[in-house]
């Protein structure tokens, strides 16, 4: 029976009673309790069912190393599965429930898996369920999937807020125990800016629980004083409830702060991710105790010795009136002493080592506790799911029972492993320390900094492998000296007065007993959460999974949510022993972030919903929104009106209406997002001659020229109109998606290849709004706006001019993508919206309509104008598109010219640009449809000889039109091709891609 003692509990406040629910039962605890300690206080010995065999499980530890105590917390939007009860701080109204059982925790049908466990060893699913084949897909796999997993996906949206903070700091100290605090104080006193992060709500680490004597006073008290000094120190920031979970390259460290998990408010800031760049880091993360592996070591009531004394000291919990302690190292004695001092019974301590006369041994004897050396636990006896007694055997034998001792709780200590995860993540190496019986940081191979230095990260205290208090403080002082050197600090480092402890070395086996027999090995757990037994490791070895990585993956050892904190080292020791190799030959696990699981929402931060990714908007977007714009997401984070929907229109109807209006009277279009790049300088012309396939240097001032750009592979990457502004200046237009990209492309060439050329570029895309007025009435419309000299002679097709439009200074380009009389008016971006409104108002008498990107695409297709990204896909050359005229034969060199000389880019069978007319006028060719050729290719697939690149309904022609690329297309006008579509074959004739106004009379008006 676990209960709350009447006195004690340094973390709890008995004046504040906190009510909570577990599995629907009302319980109460105190403020400062963890959910785990509150459950123990209520004698809730069962906390869950194990993953595979559904064995009843209780709590094992008191911190993030807890493997069994996973619960689902919260309700509705705040529900979260797989939270560790040991890490949940109790708050009023908390609801939690255990996981992985049906119908209840106490009575779980899944327990048949335990009865059938011999049929379900590690990897059993690899050896079975193969026949019949369909049975795997429809029967076995669904069963396995349903049995797997511990909690459930929440059903409601997460309403919490998560944020990210940056910190640049001189010294980051991870761990608020005595070692970390000591280093922090020394550095802060010497002038460094220090940040200390501690994963638990309370400071002080093990010393606050285990105490001792420092500088003549109680160690716990000494630590408290230190904490107070640091809390008020100018140079120091302290963050509790904050786990440093990852060390990444270039001294980048991430931590997660649990801001309000202990007092949740809906919709509030829940967690904060800290992005840190410390100049120096001290990893003072302590060490984690290891369990012992004996038969039925997973029974509720078997707990880590340190966990039991944590619950005792921090929360005044007694895990049982009588606690037997089984250990192979000195530290477990502290639990026996703490229990005895609290008035609880320790019937016996089983020390698996030979008799010794260490300090702790003497202290324990003085308290009258019996010690049996060379002995250990072979198994536990249960009654009604609780420990009734333990069976004791010799450590060296096979486990014959020597005698039994009655008890309610069993404290085990199989050794301590320094918590060196962050050291390892930062590329520091670990080494097996025989005397410590643990992997610890190898000081000869510390984390490497990007400047080649080796002294940016240190471990201190237990994390270095220094477990006794005197060694911890010695180490902390050494580390402080190293930190001073790293940060060029000077000052005194005062070593506190601590008595030397004489520690006996730990034993190096976790198997209890050493000769544990086969039957017991099948019930001796190594990884509690993934239900991996010693016999599973034996099986892995037997089957030749020799490498520890293979064995781990085969058995799933260490792959549960506790990431092997209690199981990795024990597993490696067992495997090494079985293989007959020394631990020094075994490579330790490479630790990967995160140290403890990190909420996905916290990683996403505030980049959600409307903040997920920014939109780029033009100055005129508000008008579009108000006028029924149906938005399309396009490249470079812009969105553009696809069309404008009026009065319940469908998209197709709107597109037809808009395109027709442009051809019949006039339309207005926002082309502000198209790229505008200023290229200027004495070598500007020469430069553009290299970038474009055509010649731009000869472009007269005041004129415009269509240009194509290719990559060095020879394929088209962008197109656009270039305008000659003055002797040394050009304005290059690009596609919307290409604006940043092409500007970057230009800068790349100017900075990295032709850096001696005198050319300056500027990306002016966002500086200017650009409004297109297109249609037969375009000139008349603009004439109403107090604008002069835009007649055909003053402003011919493919020219530009600066013109005043009412109060606005604008630059007007006479270019046309629609094939109609068209004026593109550029003016400062913040004036765009107003000019748009004025044009729109003036256009009312001409039935002006705004048109969107899709209508424009229809119009240009009717004219046979290609579109980058539709007719091109990165494998198309200008010659493929019949744009040979835009490729200069005279130029010696331009980007892509050499690439285009390769035979595969020039051979006659390439697919070339054509128009396609379905034989049935109403039939529509789907984009991407392939034209069938004759016969099959080498793979047995139907040969194809062409594809549809664009396909629309043309309202002016009242039929569908399409553009495409066809093998030898231009030579095959009139041929009928059969296209394969989902709805069946569709026939289409190869025609000229110019469907409308082939003479260009509208364009040149």
């Amino acid at each position, binding site marked *: 029976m676990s209960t709350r003692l009447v006195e004690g509990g340094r973390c709890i406040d008995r004046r504040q009673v906190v009510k909570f629910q577990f599995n629907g039962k009302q319980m109460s605890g105190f403020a400062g309790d963890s959910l785990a300690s509150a459950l123990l206080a209520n004698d809730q010995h069962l906390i869950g069912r194990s*993953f595979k065999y559904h064995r009843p499980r209780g709590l094992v530890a008191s911190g993030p190393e807890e493997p069994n105590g996973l619960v689902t917390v919260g309700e509705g939007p705040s529900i979260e599965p*797989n939270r560790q009860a040991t890490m949940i701080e109790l708050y009023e109204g908390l609801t939690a429930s255990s996981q992985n059982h049906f119908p209840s925790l106490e009575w779980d049908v899944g327990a048949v898996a335990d009865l059938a466990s*011999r*049929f379900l060893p590690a990897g059993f*699913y*690899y*050896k*079975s369920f*193969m*026949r019949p*084949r369909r049975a*795997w897909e429809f029967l076995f*796999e669904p069963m396995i*999937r*349903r049995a*797997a*997993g*511990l909690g459930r*996906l929440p059903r*409601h*949206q997460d309403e919490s807020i998560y944020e990210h903070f940056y910190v640049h700091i001189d010294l980051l100290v991870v761990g608020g125990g005595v070692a970390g605090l000591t280093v922090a104080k020394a550095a802060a006193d010497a002038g460094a800016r220090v940040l200390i992060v501690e994963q638990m709500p309370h400071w002080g680490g093990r010393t606050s629980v285990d105490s001792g004597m420092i500088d003549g006073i109680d160690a716990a008290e000494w630590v408290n004083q230190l904490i107070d000094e640091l809390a008020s120190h100018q140079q120091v920031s302290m963050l509790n409830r904050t786990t440093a979970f990852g060390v990444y*390259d270039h001294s980048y460290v991430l931590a997660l702060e649990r801001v309000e998990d202990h007092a949740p408010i809906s919709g509030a800031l829940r967690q904060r991710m800290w992005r840190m760049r410390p100049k120096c880091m001290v990893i003072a993360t302590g060490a984690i105790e290891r369990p012992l592996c004996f038969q039925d070591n997973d029974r509720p009531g078997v707990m880590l010795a340190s966990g039991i004394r944590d619950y005792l000291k921090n929360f005044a919990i007694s895990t049982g009136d009588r606690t037997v302690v089984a250990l192979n190292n000195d530290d477990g004695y502290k639990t026996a002493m703490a229990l005895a001092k609290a008035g609880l019974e320790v019937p016996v301590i089983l020390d698996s080592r030979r008799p010794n006369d260490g300090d702790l041994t003497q202290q324990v004897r003085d308290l009258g506790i019996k010690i049996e050396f060379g002995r250990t636990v072979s198994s536990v006896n249960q009654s009604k799911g609780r420990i009734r007694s333990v069976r004791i055997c010799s450590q060296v034998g096979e486990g014959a029972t020597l005698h039994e001792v009655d008890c309610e709780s069993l404290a085990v200590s199989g050794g301590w492993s320094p918590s060196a995860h962050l050291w390892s993540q930062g590329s520091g190496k670990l080494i097996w320390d025989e005397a410590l019986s643990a992997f610890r940081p190898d000081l000869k191979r510390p984390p490497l900094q990007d400047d080649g230095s080796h002294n940016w990260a240190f471990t201190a205290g237990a994390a270095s492998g220094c477990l006794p208090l005197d060694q911890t403080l010695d180490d902390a002082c050494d580390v402080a000296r190293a930190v001073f050197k790293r940060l060029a600090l000077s000052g005194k480092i005062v070593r506190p007065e601590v008595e030397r402890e004489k520690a006996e070395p730990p034993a190096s086996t976790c198997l209890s007993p050493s000769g544990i027999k*086969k039957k017991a090995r*099948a019930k001796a757990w190594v990884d509690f959460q993934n239900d991996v037994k010693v016999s599973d490791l034996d*099986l892995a070895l037997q*089957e*030749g999974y020799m490498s520890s990585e*293979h064995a781990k*993956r*085969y058995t799933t050892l260490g792959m549960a949510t506790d990431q092997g904190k209690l199981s990795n080292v024990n597993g490696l020791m067992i495997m090494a022993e079985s293989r007959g190799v020394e631990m020094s030959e075994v490579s330790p696990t490479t630790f*990967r*972030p995160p140290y403890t*699981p990190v*909420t*996905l*929402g916290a990683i*996403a931060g505030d980049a*959600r*919903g409307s903040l*997920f*990714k920014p939109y780029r908007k033009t100055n005129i977007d508000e008008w579009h929104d108000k006028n029924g714009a149906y938005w*399309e997401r396009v490249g470079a984070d812009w969105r553009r009106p696809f069309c404008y929907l009026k009065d319940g229109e469908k998209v197709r109807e709107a597109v037809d209406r808009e395109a027709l209006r442009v051809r019949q009277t006039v339309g207005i279009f926002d082309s502000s997002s198209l790229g505008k790049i200023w290229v200027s300088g004495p070598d500007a012309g020469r430069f553009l001659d290299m970038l474009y396939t055509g010649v731009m240097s000869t472009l007269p001032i005041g004129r415009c020229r269509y240009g194509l750009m290719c990559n060095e*592979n020879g394929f088209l990457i962008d197109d656009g109109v270039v305008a000659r502004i003055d002797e040394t200046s050009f304005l290059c237009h690009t596609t919307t998606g290409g604006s940043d990209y092409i500007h970057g492309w230009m800068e790349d060439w100017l900075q990295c290849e032709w850096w001696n050329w005198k050319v300056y570029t500027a990306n002016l895309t966002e500086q200017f709004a650009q409004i297109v007025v297109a249609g037969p009435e375009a000139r008349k419309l603009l004439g109403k706006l107090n604008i002069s000299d835009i007649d055909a002679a003053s402003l011919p097709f493919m020219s530009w001019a600066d013109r005043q439009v009412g109060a606005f200074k604008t630059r007007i380009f006479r270019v046309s993508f629609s094939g109609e009389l068209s004026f593109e008016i550029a003016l400062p971006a913040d004036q765009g919206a107003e000019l748009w409104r004025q044009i729109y108002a003036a256009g009312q008498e001409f039935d002006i309509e705004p048109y969107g990107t899709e209508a424009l695409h229809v119009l240009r297709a009717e004219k046979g104008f290609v579109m980058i990204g539709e007719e091109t*896909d*990165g*494998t198309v050359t200008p010659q493929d598109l019949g744009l040979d005229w835009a490729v200069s034969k005279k130029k010696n060199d331009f980007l892509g010219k050499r*690439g285009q000389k*390769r*035979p*595969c*880019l020039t051979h006659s069978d390439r697919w070339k640009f054509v128009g396609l007319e379905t034989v049935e006028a109403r039939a529509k060719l*789907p*984009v*991407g449809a*392939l034209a069938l050729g004759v016969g099959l290719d080498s*793979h047995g*697939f*139907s040969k194809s000889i062409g*594809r549809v690149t664009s396909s629309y309904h043309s309202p002016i022609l009242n039929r569908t039109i399409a553009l495409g690329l066809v093998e030898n297309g231009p030579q095959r006008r009139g041929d009928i091709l059969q296209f*394969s579509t989902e709805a069946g074959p569709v026939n289409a004739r190869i025609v000229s891609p110019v469907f409308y106004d082939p003479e260009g009379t509208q364009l040149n008006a």
Partner: protein
Amino acid sequence: MRYSIFNLCREALCGHTGWPKAWESPTPKSRYEVIIIGGGGHGLATAYYLGKNFGIRDVAILEKGWLGGGNTGRNTTIIRSNYLENDSVAIYEKSRDLYETLSQDLNMNIMFSPRGVMMLAQTHHEAHAYMRIANANRLQNIETEYISPTQVFEKCPIICIDGPRYPILGALWQPRGGTARHDTVAWGYARACSKMGIHIIENCEVTGINREGGRVTGVTTHRGSISCDKLGIVVAGHSGQLADMAGFRLPIESVALQALVSEPIKPCLDVVVMANTVHGYISQSDKGEMVIGGGTDGVINYSQRGSFTYIEETVRALVETFPLISRLKMLRQWGGIVDMTGDRSPIISATPVDKLFINCGWGTGGFKAIPGSGWAMAELMANEAPGSLAEPFSLDRFREGRFIDERVAAGVAH
């Protein structure tokens, strides 16, 4: 001993003592007919099909670490074949088809789960690209379909169809795509190879490739020199280093590709979803973990570690598309080294060195290709001439300009 429910039960009753080693660890001989450098999925599959299809069993696989410890043990296990070009689809579909019966062929349950793969279209441009692939797939006899947002939602109820930034316009759906258990694919091939007498030599790093008169004669390793008639390099990210040893260059760059898993939860996602506009993809393993991946890290990187920036980008994208996963937790993250070619298609080819063949450049799409790649590479090495599967992927295509451009269909951003 065959793996079967019958044997499992029988062994259960006698303490599982009868299970033999999955694969032997023999001492390397001084000479083999064929040496394959690289004990990952592709290398093991190559050896297997050399033995099975061509009876060539005097083969050694040299693996510098533990087999399957490279990308094969680090990927997100997606299997699909809905690429664009005929040449690509031929080999990826061959591979997918082999996966359908691989558990039975190898007598080891690789847990092939054809639960369907969907690639979300979140811009009009992307929609057109996937429609184009669907059209091509029809002629390639691949079962794919361009489906509507409603159909997407039916197959995947936890998805957010109308996210504010990138609503879902449709998806390319391959019903017989899915996942498999990556480690077991390697172990299954290894076991089958071992059974045929093929030698798998782990912890044996090749330090030099020996040549004489323009042809390969053998390798130098940490465990001594071994000679051979033919040599195959199948090492993914480290292909460049091995090519250097043999004196030729490769058009590849080795970059980091990262992935992560969440804690395991009860089944909630039955399909594989790839959201390439926002750079993230997700599926749920049989263990219950949400398996998540995204784009490559973009710089040459052999550390098998990546930048957390890309993890953030991927998680953001998936939390946006699947808001309900926000309160799940990232349990583990890791990286691999993927070798990227300029056209995002692999290289299965002879090399300038006679009798030396190379298989690399699978980039972010290697796992789905393991059986097909091994099949094609075995054919190439056995016949010393490529079959129809390998032929388009020759090293020469880069000089000739004959690219097999799969930058869209490869999906994963780079």
